[in-house]
């Protein structure tokens, strides 16, 4: 019986020892090798004092070792915490401190970055995966693989133990860590395999970095089916033609990404002249897929089925809408219905269930739901809706904060975020967070960040007011943002205004600012 993620690899290593589990560029690793190497990493971590409940960081670009890092950390009993290497160093230090990471799994490519991180005060004890010596205990991958297999004593991992923590932006200006257990991650992995009928012959394209929940499908669901996951390199993501060539060469059968990547393939990948006849499922999530674009792609790949996936990171996935034929109208496609082991309600502001067809906020109860936010009980409590059945027994739902309504086919339609949190190219961005960073800058008195279209591209534009005394330039502010925010949250334009348009109650009129920017672009 499977009840933790580690057993996925053990099972596939028994059933298909010599089958490729992961591929990256010219490299690949079989299930047997992955099982062995992750045991060796786990053994090393345990000798360094890692125990159940600990958090171990992964600081890596996309590469083959990501798979060994994930399963090695899990096998040590710890939870893995992916850290985006493209984050500014201040952010990386924040994550490391926030969940008290003592050991970091990495590769030589991050050596320079790590050297900088180690310059300031930290509680790190070990860096795994570095060949050069640093001002801390390091060990190379080569040395990790030299450890004897019989030394590894497996850890008894319960389904309720933590498996990973994914950090996303928080409204207070600091990222929040979403905790998943082995149970919630495994429930997700199983539901995916069941819903899309994953087989061991499938080849899954993973374009997502580890800190993005879309990666769980490639790293957990695919191995559960003993399928092969192709890890797409950072370089391929920047060149649609190369990406299309890779997808064709790898004979990918299942694709999962944000719509943006598919749109780039469609327009710049020269896919008309390539063979994608193996593609049987195209899954997308993270943002709405413009129906016109979706239709154009579906017409090129008529043999594939498409699925619109919805679900905040707190829930992994929770709804889906499958399409066999291209949508007839340009209306946005539904997010569909909840999958198995999941139920939902649509509530009004007072937590009453709305009438069918009325707008309301979606709350979801599912086996795939998070354990809570790391080190933030108040935030966890605030995110839950508890429906009391009897004294001491309640059903717990997650408040998605998303506005939805049912259409006449009983399918959910996504209408938008309740608060100012937005999604841009699949990344979750809290407007308030960017504004807070801008306001931190000496001389900035007010800031309003809005989302608008620049040359048909959804972009962030920041508008600010200054005190008039300090030297504030748009360029300096951009540098300040780059140093403090993930790159996808850095505003494309920063405009210094003399005043803001206001509403009657004196609030900044964002709608007005948006139309001002639109007319000036």
């Amino acid at each position, binding site marked *: 019986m499977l009840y933790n993620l580690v057993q996925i690899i053990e099972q596939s290593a028994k059933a298909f020892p010599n089958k490729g589990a992961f591929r990256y560029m010219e490299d690949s690793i079989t299930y047997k090798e992955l099982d062995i190497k992750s045991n060796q990493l786990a053994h090393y971590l345990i000798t360094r004092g890692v125990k159940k409940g600990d958090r171990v960081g992964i600081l890596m670009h996309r590469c083959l070792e990501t798979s060994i890092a994930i399963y090695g950390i899990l096998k040590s009993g710890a939870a893995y915490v992916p850290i985006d290497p493209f984050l500014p160093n201040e952010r990386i230090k924040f994550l490391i401190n926030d969940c008290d990471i003592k050991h970091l799994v990495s590769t030589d490519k991050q050596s320079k970055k790590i050297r900088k991180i180690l310059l300031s005060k930290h509680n790190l004890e070990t860096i795994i995966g570095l060949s050069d010596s640093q001002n801390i205990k390091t060990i190379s991958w080569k040395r990790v693989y030299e450890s004897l297999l019989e030394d590894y004593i497996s850890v008894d991992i319960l389904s309720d133990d933590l498996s990973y923590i994914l950090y996303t932006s928080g409204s207070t200006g600091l990222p929040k860590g979403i905790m998943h257990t082995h149970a919630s991650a495994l429930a997700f992995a199983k539901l995916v395999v069941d819903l899309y009928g994953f087989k061991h012959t499938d080849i899954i394209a993973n374009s997502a970095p580890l800190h993005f929940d879309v990666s769980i499908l490639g790293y957990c669901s695919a191995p559960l089916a003993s399928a092969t996951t192709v890890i797409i390199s950072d*370089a391929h993501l920047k060149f649609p033609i*190369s990406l299309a060539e890779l997808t064709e060469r790898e004979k990918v059968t299942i694709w999962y990404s944000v719509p943006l990547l598919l749109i780039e393939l469609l327009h710049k990948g020269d896919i008309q002249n390539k063979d994608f006849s193996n593609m049987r499922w195209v899954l997308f999530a993270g943002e709405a897929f413009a129906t016109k674009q979706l239709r154009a792609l579906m017409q090129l790949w008529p043999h594939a089925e498409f699925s619109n996936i919805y679900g905040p990171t707190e829930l992994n996935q929770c709804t889906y809408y499958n399409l066999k034929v291209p949508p007839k109208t340009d209306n946005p496609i539904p997010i569909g219905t909840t999958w198995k082991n999941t139920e939902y309600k649509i509530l009004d502001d007072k937590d009453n269930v709305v009438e069918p067809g009325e707008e309301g906020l979606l709350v979801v109860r599912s086996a795939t739901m998070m354990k809570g936010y790391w080190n933030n009980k108040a935030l966890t409590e605030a995110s839950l809706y508890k429906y009391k059945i009897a004294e001491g027994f309640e059903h717990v739902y997650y408040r998605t904060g998303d506005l939805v309504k049912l259409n006449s086919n009983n399918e959910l339609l996504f209408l938008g975020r309740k608060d100012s949190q937005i999604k841009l190219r699949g990344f979750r961005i809290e407007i308030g967070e960017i504004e807070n960073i801008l306001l931190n800058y000496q001389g900035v008195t007010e800031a309003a960040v809005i989302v608008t279209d620049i040359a048909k591209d959804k972009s962030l534009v920041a508008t600010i007011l200054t005190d008039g005394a300090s030297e504030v330039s748009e360029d300096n502010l951009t540098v300040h943002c780059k140093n403090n925010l993930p790159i996808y949250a850095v505003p494309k334009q920063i405009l210094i205004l003399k005043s803001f348009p206001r509403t009657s109650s004196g609030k900044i009129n964002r709608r007005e600012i948006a139309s001002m920017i639109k007319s000036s672009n």
Partner: protein
Amino acid sequence: MEKTIIKHIENELAVEVIEDGLEASDDLLGSGIVDSLGMMKLVSFIEEQFTIEVAPEEMVIDNFMTVKNICEYIKTKL
């Protein structure tokens, strides 16, 4: 040619300040020195600077992985 491109990347396109300077053999794409938008800007820069036209089918990893690759590619166009 190499120097011009390196300087432009260091001063205009790099996501973060490159402390020890950029080398012609550094991996521009995998290491996150430039992001997708930066790559687009780099292509326009090359087109203007060397008065060449980068055809869509030439927009591939092999031509843009490193500054060295870029220079080799440009030379085939001159």
